[in-house]
């Protein structure tokens, strides 16, 4: 059976499946919100959703516009502070962080600050926000990115949030917490992990109808390819119904593809 879905819906479904029940996730604004909310409504009802502004353990009723708005506190277990949430992340309580960016390199380093020269930027982006803290302090970072050569780049214009920085051992050398760093990248073309020896990004699955070549052509750096690249399971009817009717019924995020 074939089903109609757009690429944003595909990314939301695929990334939500990465979130296991009874784990904790620090969620950023936009698509990560949709993805975490879907996971909570489907296979991970006890997913501990944490927002940087201070809400802990919400049952997300409908998509929040801000990671600090009242929706993030709906049926939560605690309305805390940024200090509380970020201290807990620094202490090791946050399993996953969910982030997006304007640019990413092969070590999963992210740019959300400027495109072009820092002092005379072509595009000024919002900056770190809680992104750097999430990427620094959470155990595993999941990155949600549109896949093209402008975004998957050989060299970032600005390293806002550290991934594996320059490769194996670089995070520890910089002083970042041990056993932390990027875990998966989900794009509209496939899913990538980070090869354990080199910490370089590696293609592990392609989405239905996408070839390995197409992924490589859309990547601005040398992407490693797993020996056995699988084909991603397409979104299910149940996932799509939940996305469209409950998670983001106004189509604010998923309707924008």
């Amino acid at each position: 059976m074939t089903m109609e879905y757009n690429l944003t819906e595909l990314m939301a479904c695929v990334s939500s499946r990465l979130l296991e029940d009874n784990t904790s996730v620090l969620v950023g604004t936009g698509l990560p919100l949709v993805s975490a909310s879907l996971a909570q409504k489907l296979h991970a009802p006890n997913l501990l959703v944490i927002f940087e502004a201070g809400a802990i353990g919400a049952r997300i009723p409908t998509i929040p516009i801000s990671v600090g708005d009242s929706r993030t506190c709906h049926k939560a277990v605690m309305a805390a502070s940024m200090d509380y949430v970020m201290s807990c992340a620094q202490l090791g309580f946050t399993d996953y962080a969910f982030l997006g960016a304007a640019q990413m390199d092969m070590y999963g380093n992210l740019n959300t600050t400027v495109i072009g020269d820092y002092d005379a930027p072509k595009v000024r982006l919002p900056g770190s926000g809680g992104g750097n803290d999430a990427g620094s302090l959470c155990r595993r970072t999941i990155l949600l990115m549109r896949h093209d050569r402008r975004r998957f780049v050989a060299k970032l214009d600005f390293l806002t949030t550290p991934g594996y920085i320059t490769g194996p051992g670089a995070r520890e050398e910089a002083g970042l917490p041990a056993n932390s760093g990027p875990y998966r990248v989900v794009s509209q073309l496939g899913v990538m992990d980070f090869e354990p020896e080199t910490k370089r990004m590696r293609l592990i699955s392609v989405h239905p109808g996408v070839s390995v070549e197409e992924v490589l052509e859309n990547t601005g750096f040398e992407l490693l390819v797993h020996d056995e690249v699988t084909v991603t399971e397409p979104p299910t009817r149940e996932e799509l119904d939940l996305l469209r009717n409950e998670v983001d019924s106004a189509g604010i995020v998923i309707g924008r593809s």
Partner: protein
Amino acid sequence: MKILEEGRGELLGWMDPDEARSWMTENKSRGLEDKRMSMVEAVSRFTRDGDYFALGGFGHIRVSMAAIYEMIRQGRKGMTMAAKTAVHDIDVLIGGGVVSRVDCAYAFGHELRGLSPTGRRAVEGGKVKVVGEISNAGFQWRFKAAAMGLPFMPTRSMLGSDTLRMSSSKVVEDPFTGKPLCLLPACYPDFVFMHVHRCDIYGNAQIDGIIIEDGELARAAKRLILTTEEIVDTEEIRDHPDRTAVPFYLVDAVVEVPYGSHPGNMPGLYYSDEEHMAEWLRLSRTDEGVEEYMDKYVRSVGDFPEYIELVGGAEKMEYLRKLEKLEVPLEAPWARR
């Protein structure tokens, strides 16, 4: 401690802890005084051109919009904003000509609504300068250092990034572990406006929902002006002292402003006004549009109650209350395709 690296960002709002102690001792009264005043008086007494300031809340959540509009009306300029998650607040302040320099954790964006046309245009055109980068947690820990009367707060965040390189932090060798550690300098803004759910005439304040970083920021502020949805009897505060988020001795002024976070969200009371946000985002695509907005909603408006009437009055406020309570579905005109 051995210094391993120093950020190049401008160090703003820092004081030697002894200087900070003297300032707080001499300028903050421990007396119970009626601190009520008008918005006009609060802005004219506590804000100066060129000041370094921060705002409570979260950019478009529990923000002191009345203070923002009044700063624009009084023609404040040349200010540097501590953009610790600045969203609609900084957008309007940049559009209104108040802010020309930004100490940046998050700005020039509107979260789910996308990037901010005004903020981007101002930075890309050179009208507004970013003088430093930091992370959100980093900024609130700067306030925490100040709140504790310490010169800095250590963190394991920001290490190995350009965010750190463009911040005012330093990396040192931790004397206990020998590992690199980021030290965030204390930050004492010249003034802070903070919107709260309720407080008494002395400034004892309650905040419903997440407090974000306002517990730290209230203590870090050299001048703290509360805007409040309502002023309550001090006995209401004393009946529930566990609910006090800000005690009176931190507070310099109290201004009663119902719906004072509009068009932002006020947790538990009203949701953000997305129709108004869409109008701002549409108009702010051009400098002319920004002027049109300022004329319509800020400069030609006498006070906040008049503004609330202008944006839809009681009917609109009732709709936003229902939206907050999830009784009506969210409409997001800015997302229309």
